[in-house]
């Protein structure tokens, strides 16, 4: 018969450790955070076999005295907080005092440290919880922690380790955000003697350029603050967007965090600048009053909750919209992608995905079309024109679509309240209590938009709607509005249905691909296009035109190397 027993102290420690130390990546994360907390200005990370064989994190921070070493590997020992009040004002990464202790129970940890006042450092090795002797070691001031034999004593856990490449990837995914948010610290990461990252102390821009390979031309910096909060950072040009969210970084008070709701806010703000199902690049630094933030949600500290989330989301949304409006963009392309196309000699239409890899940066530039020059139409689809600095290739359909969309949009905006259609017979829409409450709160806006509604307890009687919305399923429409309101998004005057409507209208009315155009039609189209506000993508997110500068052409033809 099995009796319930109290676990041995060892076993308790190992189980507790599992919360923090689940793979090499979590070891690296804890050690790098410790190094940062120690005030390091240079941190070197050395890995072997995805960290499963060995992890060393060496810093030049404040270091520890030899008598502190054995204490450092005890659980719930830390220098980072001393009182309960400190928890609320947490400025350091770590605070639970568990990381080193946890590592020491599941691996061999060699801790070497030297404070600047001492000439010689001390070293201590703990193997699966067993303390060795403290010895002397020659080293530079700072701390170096080496973790080997990870999970060797717990084969079951070891089994869960993935391939070397996967573990390395996981390590990078925890280390890169830390490297990004600390540009003032030099970092290196060496994996199997190969240097993966090696960056000196830099400015934030330089750091992003070095680590993410994104140069300033494709990033839009911004800073936006209100009374309590600051949102700063960089937005990636739309063409950088890709299918994964791995180039989205969010830092709350300097701590790397994942928040899918904020990511969505950013994405929505990009609107039609993006192709569907793609993720914009962003690096956001959110600064909130420390007491509003709670990081102590779980031992890994990668989730952060904060109060008044709605206000923060609104701020982020406004910031992003403003930046995108400020940057009036269009595609310029650098030769390589075309070269590839020319090599394969296919004349397929240039697709957005082919272009994206090569298009950068989005710069704002005045086009001046050469007045006398002819505009060429090829395959009744693309227009080619000479500009002051090169040539521009335009997708006639996409271009017209964009123009019309913008016109529809402007017309809609201007006349939405005048163009009201009475609903005959009047329709009564029943909504949930929540939805109803949300909508009734915004009655005024709805009225301004041209809705004439009567709120009856838990139903809405629809008397008149903007013409654009006439004949629609009103239950669906209002549900959507309510959802927007409930999810704390500003009710966008352009709900997705309206957008789709306008886009559809624009698309159907626009010049088709394959339609021959007369010379003056071509010119008019181009002039219109270049005077359109957002001219670089069609409402579906495809590029409208590609701008090739003489420089690019020269490169293509190897006139310059």
């Amino acid at each position, binding site marked *: 018969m099995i009796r319930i027993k109290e676990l041995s102290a060892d076993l308790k420690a190992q189980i507790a450790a599992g919360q923090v130390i689940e793979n090499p990546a979590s070891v690296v994360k804890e050690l790098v955070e410790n190094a940062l907390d120690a005030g390091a200005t*240079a941190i*070197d990370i*050395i890995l072997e076999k995805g960290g499963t064989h060995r992890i*060393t994190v*060496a810093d*030049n921070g404040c270091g520890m005295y030899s008598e502190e070493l054995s204490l450092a590997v005890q659980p719930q020992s830390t220098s980072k907080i001393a009182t309960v009040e400190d928890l609320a004002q947490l400025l350091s990464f770590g605070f639970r005092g568990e990381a080193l202790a946890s590592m020491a129970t599941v691996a061999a940890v060699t801790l070497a440290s030297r404070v600047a006042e001492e*000439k*010689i450092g001390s070293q201590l090795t703990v193997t699966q919880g067993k303390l060795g002797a403290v*010895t*002397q*070691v*020659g*080293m*530079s*001031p700072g701390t*170096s922690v080496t973790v080997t034999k990870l999970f060797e004593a717990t084969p079951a856990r070891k089994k869960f380790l993935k391939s070397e490449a996967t573990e390395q990837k996981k390590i990078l995914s925890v280390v890169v955000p830390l490297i990004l948010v600390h540009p003032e610290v*030099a970092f*290196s990461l*060496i994996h199997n003697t190969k240097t993966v990252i*090696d960056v*000196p102390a*830099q*400015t934030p*821009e*330089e750091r992003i*350029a*070095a680590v993410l390979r994104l*140069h*300033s031309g494709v990033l839009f910096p911004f800073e936006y603050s209100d009374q309590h909060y600051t949102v700063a950072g960089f937005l990636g040009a739309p063409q950088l967007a890709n299918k994964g969210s791995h180039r989205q970084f969010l830092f709350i008070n300097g701590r790397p965090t994942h928040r899918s709701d904020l990511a969505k806010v950013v994405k929505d703000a990009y609107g039609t600048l993006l192709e569907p199902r793609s993720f914009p690049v962003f690096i956001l630094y959110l600064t909130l009053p420390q007491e509003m933030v709670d990081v102590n949600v779980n031992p890994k500290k990668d989730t952060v909750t904060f109060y008044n989330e709605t206000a923060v989301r609104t701020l982020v949304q406004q910031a992003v919209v403003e930046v995108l409006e400020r940057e009036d963009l269009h595609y310029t392309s650098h030769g390589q992608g075309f070269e590839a196309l020319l090599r394969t000699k296919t004349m397929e239409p240039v697709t957005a995905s082919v272009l994206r890899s090569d298009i950068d940066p989005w710069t704002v530039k005045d086009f001046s079309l050469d007045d006398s020059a002819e505009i060429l139409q090829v395959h009744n689809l693309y227009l080619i024109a000479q500009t002051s600095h090169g040539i521009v290739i335009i997708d006639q359909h996409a271009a017209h679509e964009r123009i019309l969309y913008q016109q529809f949009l402007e017309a809609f905006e201007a006349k939405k309240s005048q163009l009201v259609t009475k609903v005959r017979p009047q329709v009564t829409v029943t909504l949930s209590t929540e939805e109803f409450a949300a909508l009734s709160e915004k009655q005024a806006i709805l009225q301004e938009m041209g809705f004439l509604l009567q709120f009856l307890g838990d139903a809405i009687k629809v008397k008149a709607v903007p013409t654009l919305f006439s004949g629609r399923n009103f239950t669906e429409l209002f549900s959507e509005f309510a959802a927007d309101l409930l999810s704390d998004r500003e009710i966008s005057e352009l709900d997705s249905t309206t957008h789709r409507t306008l886009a559809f209208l624009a698309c159907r009315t626009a010049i088709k691909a394959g339609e021959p155009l007369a010379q003056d039609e071509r010119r008019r189209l181009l002039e219109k296009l270049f005077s359109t506000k957002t001219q670089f993508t069609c409402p579906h997110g495809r590029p409208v035109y590609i701008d090739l500068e003489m420089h690019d052409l020269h490169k293509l033809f190897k*006139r*310059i*190397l």
Partner: protein
Amino acid sequence: MREFQTPMMQQYLEIKRQYPDCLLFFRLGDFYELFLEDAELGARVLGITLTARPRGKDGHVPMAGVPFHAADSYLAKLVAAGYKVAICEQMSEPNKKGIVEREVVRVVTPGTVMSDASLHARKNNYVCAVSIGKKWVGCALADISTGSFYTSEFPVATWKKELDTIILTYEPREVILAKDDYAQYEVISFFTDYQDCNLTVFHEWEQYTTDARSYLKEHFKVATLSGFGIEKKIQAQVAAAALLGYVTTTQKTTVVHLQAPGQLAAGHAVVLDRSTISNLELFKTIREGGAKGSLLDTLDTTKSALGARMVRRWIVEPLVTKKAIGRRLQAVEELAQNQQLREKTQKTISQIHDVERSISRFSVGLGIPPELIRLKHSLAHMLEVKTNLETCAAAHIQESCEGLSEQLSELVTYLDTHLLEDPRVDVKKGGVIARGISKELDELYALKKGDTDWILEFEKTEREKTGITSLKVKSNKVFGYYIEVSKSYVHLVPGEYDRKQTLVNGERFITPELKKYEERIVTAEEKIETLEVALFAEVVEKVLTYLVVMQTAAVSIAELDCLLAFAQNAVEKRYCKPVVGLSDEIKITAGRHPVVETIQERGQFVPNDTFLNASDHQLLLITGPNMAGKSVYMRQVALIVLLAHIGSFVPAREAQISVVDRIFVRSGASDFITSGMSTFMVEMVEAATILRHATSKSLIIMDEIGRGTSTYDGISIAWAIAEYLVSSTDSKPKTLFATHYHELQQLEKVFKKSIKNVHVAIDDTTDPPTFLHTVLEGGASHSFGVAVAKMAGVPPEVTKRAEVLLVELEAQAAQTVSVVPSDLDTKVSGVSEVVRILKTTDLDSCTPLEALQLLEELKKKV
């Protein structure tokens, strides 16, 4: 010598006679042929087939040849092997009458080679002339592939030493001597020690040097040589004139691109001698002898060949003034702080070709058209560099940018309008000059095009007229243009066609009309070719008027490339900006060895502090176990000081460096090649140099002096040297002195004001002992030699016995040496006092009585 009957072999012999010490590349059509002994040697060195073709009446003549278009790589091989090659070209078109005229157009020697195939892009290729006079020895050094030219002169007593340093520093590939000097055993034996250095007797030496001064003045178009600093240095003039003469003789043309001779670093650079250069492993490692692992290898992150050669020069010519050093440091700092600007500019510089070598080749008539296009792009990139960096504040960057003259853009435009973007390699085939330059040329091309069009039209009309669908107009070298008709249509061929040739499946015809146009096309082509050659020569001439502008620009780019590389190093290797010349102290906080730290894992190198000054820290006596890192520590200090003097940031957290005049590094391991000297002798020769030349501004590294002889000899010598270094009145060089003789630690007590004991720490509580690689104050008590022997795997029988002996010997030594300090203390201080008194006493104004009193006083002191 063999006599020959055929005119060609007679011509060969006659030319060969003029170039007895060269292999003769004798142009025969598309080949360069070697004959007779040359052929045998060439075949062996080049691995080509040796044939022996019967040459009529002359019987079998050994012969080996290489195709002319591949000659460069074969030449490179021969030159690399140290041979000289005379290139003999056909000077007239072959025709029926008589033999083709041939002439040697240039001589290729290891020191005067110009082709990229033979040259190391990142290294200069120097040729050196040495003139040995009665009192003075002159030396001239030139790299004709880049145009740099230097002279130097030194007393005959020290010429070997001086020249040794020059050869080690500049690595000339060839040294030319006068016939008389070449005949001296002493001279020859000196030079034979340098394996990569080829010796050449210059037979026309006298011709150029009898009036060296006038020759130099005339060549450089100057009224006086004082600008070159050799107005009064006769031997330097002779060497320079001889070198100029040699280069002129080999290139068969005046070498306009050689710059006015500068002086080899003397007085305006920190002196680094052979043992310093080799012990600090500046260019190659002692163990492997390769560049990998050298300071240059670590430091050279330049992006162009121009910069790479400059960085080498900067290393061997460290600056000696605070101002000059500060200028470079300021520039490096600015570039280090601006990552984007730096990376952008480096990218541009990496696209700049080796302009110096290109223009040098054009100067001697060797350049090809595509090289001018590369030159054009390079010049454009240079201007781009200027635009990038112009806004920088640092004076050095500003001045380098000024060296990038706007005139370059004129030249770019000129080349742009005058040359086709993708010109043919051989200008004799045309297709080089752009349209719109010569009306005549444009007309010829138009004419040719018209005529070619006529031929196409002719083909079409003939096909229609005859109904032969397979009719084609073709051309080849033998028949020119012809009409080809396949067999099945031959019956349709009209009567006026003139049959020329019958093939398996067709026949070839000509018509008078076709021939007329052929004639016109051929004539046009010939005219085009002649005209293109002439126009290209004009272009080259025009380009050469910008010679100085381009050379100056190349130097500017080289400097900027170096500064950028230093900035890159500073950032990537985490170096700090040293404060140079603020005081007479060397104060390094957390210094690292720039090379060793790169071999170790990042951050694993244990940094150490250093403090040296002219007073109480003048000599650091370093003790500590073997392998603990004494040598690394001392070299690290020397390298940090050196780096600071070349204007680089240094591997340390903070560094304050006094300006030094010489860096001496004396080390146990020596690779001095001069045979017949024992290790100890070499050690002592080097020590002698140091003691004689060191000044208060020098930095000395003495690594285990006196270990090449018996213990007591060694201790005595080491002791005496250390004493001398701190007690000599007129020079107080800063010294790092490592020794295993722990007895020397007692010097600290004697010379409290100068010597400090330090040791490299070891933790002996562990077994084996742990090296801590940390330098601490105080002396070490043991060398742990036995422990190291154990680690190395020496059998326990031996190490155990050694331990026993060690205890015994140390006990004995403690007795003997214990008396030394007090005794020595009085003795030494007494003696120096006596010396001081004697020195200050004026005997001429001394009465006999005073002299006696003085004597008594002195006796008391001893």
